[in-house]
């Protein structure tokens, strides 16, 4: 069976004005229900690439297809029905006097019925844990909570694909985990997720596939284990695999596989090895 691509990028090149290309000849596609991390150093083109998925940027050459439809002929407000986009700074979008109205803004743009809007708003606020704040003035909340308002306003639109641009910046560890757990649930419910991040432990924990960008080109594209097992590639774009993967690699000659992603995983491997007495543990 031919797998239908949710987002398909073909030989995409992009430059601002008449300057140097920011993205060079990028091609890849994502299937339904994937969870992809987009990583790379600052200025590698992550956000620029992501903005092509909902038409905020148009390719200078090449094509971007969403659900098989060429985006060149579609308006951003139309693409917003298919691809949700959570921006880095929630203050660029918040302008209503209550949290609930803010979340409902996108739904009113979609011209949904009043009942549907209320239901979806309530569900989205529930998902991000802001139900009790639905009548609060957004700027009385913390930055982390405002970030979750932005997330809720995209969730409520129930787009098949959701793009998150550094959803955890400025959040403490607990808030980061909270947000990423919401993302994981969305992914389990069948949404295609693409998130940009600099936090490799988040990548290891939540993504299944990684796209590594470096100076506008795709350096690596594959599942998390295989990409993190090749630190030389990551080094080119100034990234390092998570510490636990590094540790596993250092232990590599003791027959530990180099593609360990989690602490628990390594612990279990070590326990198993101890009982089997393989390797050199003399």
């Amino acid at each position, binding site marked *: 069976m031919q797998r239908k691509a949710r987002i398909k990028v073909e030989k995409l090149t992009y430059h601002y004005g008449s300057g140097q290309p920011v993205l060079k000849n990028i091609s890849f596609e994502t299937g339904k229900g994937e969870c992809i991390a987009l990583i790379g150093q600052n200025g590698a083109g992550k956000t620029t690439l992501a903005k092509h998925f909902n038409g905020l940027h148009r390719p200078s050459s090449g094509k971007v297809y969403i659900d098989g439809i060429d985006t060149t002929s579609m308006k951003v407000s139309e693409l*917003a029905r298919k691809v949700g986009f959570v921006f880095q700074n929630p203050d660029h979008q918040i302008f209503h006097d209550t949290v609930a109205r803010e979340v409902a803004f996108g739904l009113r743009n979609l011209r949904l019925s009043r009942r549907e809007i209320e239901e979806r708003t309530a569900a989205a606020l529930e998902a991000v844990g802001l139900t009790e704040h639905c009548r609060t003035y957004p700027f009385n909340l913390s930055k982390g909570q405002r970030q979750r308002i932005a997330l809720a306003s995209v969730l409520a639109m129930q787009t098949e694909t959701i793009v998150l641009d550094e959803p955890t910046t400025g959040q403490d560890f607990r808030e980061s985990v909270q947000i990423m757990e919401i993302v994981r649930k969305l992914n389990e419910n069948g949404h295609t997720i693409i998130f940009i991040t600099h936090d490799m432990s988040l990548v290891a924990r939540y993504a299944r596939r990684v796209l590594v960008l470096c100076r506008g080109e795709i350096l690596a594209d594959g599942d998390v284990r295989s990409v993190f097992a090749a630190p030389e590639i990551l080094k080119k774009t100034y990234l390092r695999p998570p510490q636990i993967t590094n540790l596993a690699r250092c232990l590599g000659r003791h027959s530990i596989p180099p593609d360990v992603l989690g602490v628990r995983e390594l612990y279990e491997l070590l326990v198993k090895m101890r009982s089997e007495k393989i390797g050199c543990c003399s």
Partner: protein
Amino acid sequence: MAAVAEYISRNSPIHRLNPLTKMIWALSILGVGLLFNDYRYLLALLASVLLVAAAAGVLRSLLPAAAGLTVFALILLLIQALFYGQGQVLFYLVPVSNRLAVTGPGLLSGIAMAARMMALVLSFLIFLATTRTRDIVLTLVEKLKVPYDYAFMFMTALRFIPAFFSEVRQVSEAQQARAYAVEGWNPVKKIRAYAPVAVPLVLLSLNKADQLAMAMETRGYSGGLRTCLREAKMGVADYGLSVLLALLLVGSAAARLAGYGLM
């Protein structure tokens, strides 16, 4: 739009000149531009301004701004050409009914006005594009004895323009991503429809002003006598050029009094 009123880093002789010299140059262009109203003189002035831009290597970056200015230049040209009302009629804008006559002198005076406006505005933009903000402030305060508060306010306002436009873009992108679109022809509706962009912008700007004030205070703004780390020195070229420009200005005034460059 972002390139307007911003410093453009190049290593040209124009960039290396003292800010004061460039300020004198821009003021000379202003003076000469206002003295004459013959279109030939003013077109030559515009050409000289463009030559300076080319010498500074910023001509290409200023082209979008220049293109924007031509719109206003054309409006000026049209108004002058239509309302001058003297001299021989060249053609009529509404051919059949012989209305809206365009006369020869009217057209030429329109060209003069347009060239004057472009020369003046572009000379100021070139000054800004070739001079670092901090150097302008330094010159204003040290050489021209402008109170530091005023110099600082002026430069902050200039600096705010590009930052503001980048914010406008980010906010409208964020709202478009939530299926927001300005539609329809009803002007009242249209103004209301700008709220999603305008409100976050106002909030962000207030926030930014607040942060700026705090940053200034933490860095000892108005904390007493100011001293400067750098000093902008006037070189031989600066003195030479300043004298030349002064001579040009005096010469132009004399020529104007003698009746040249009038129409």
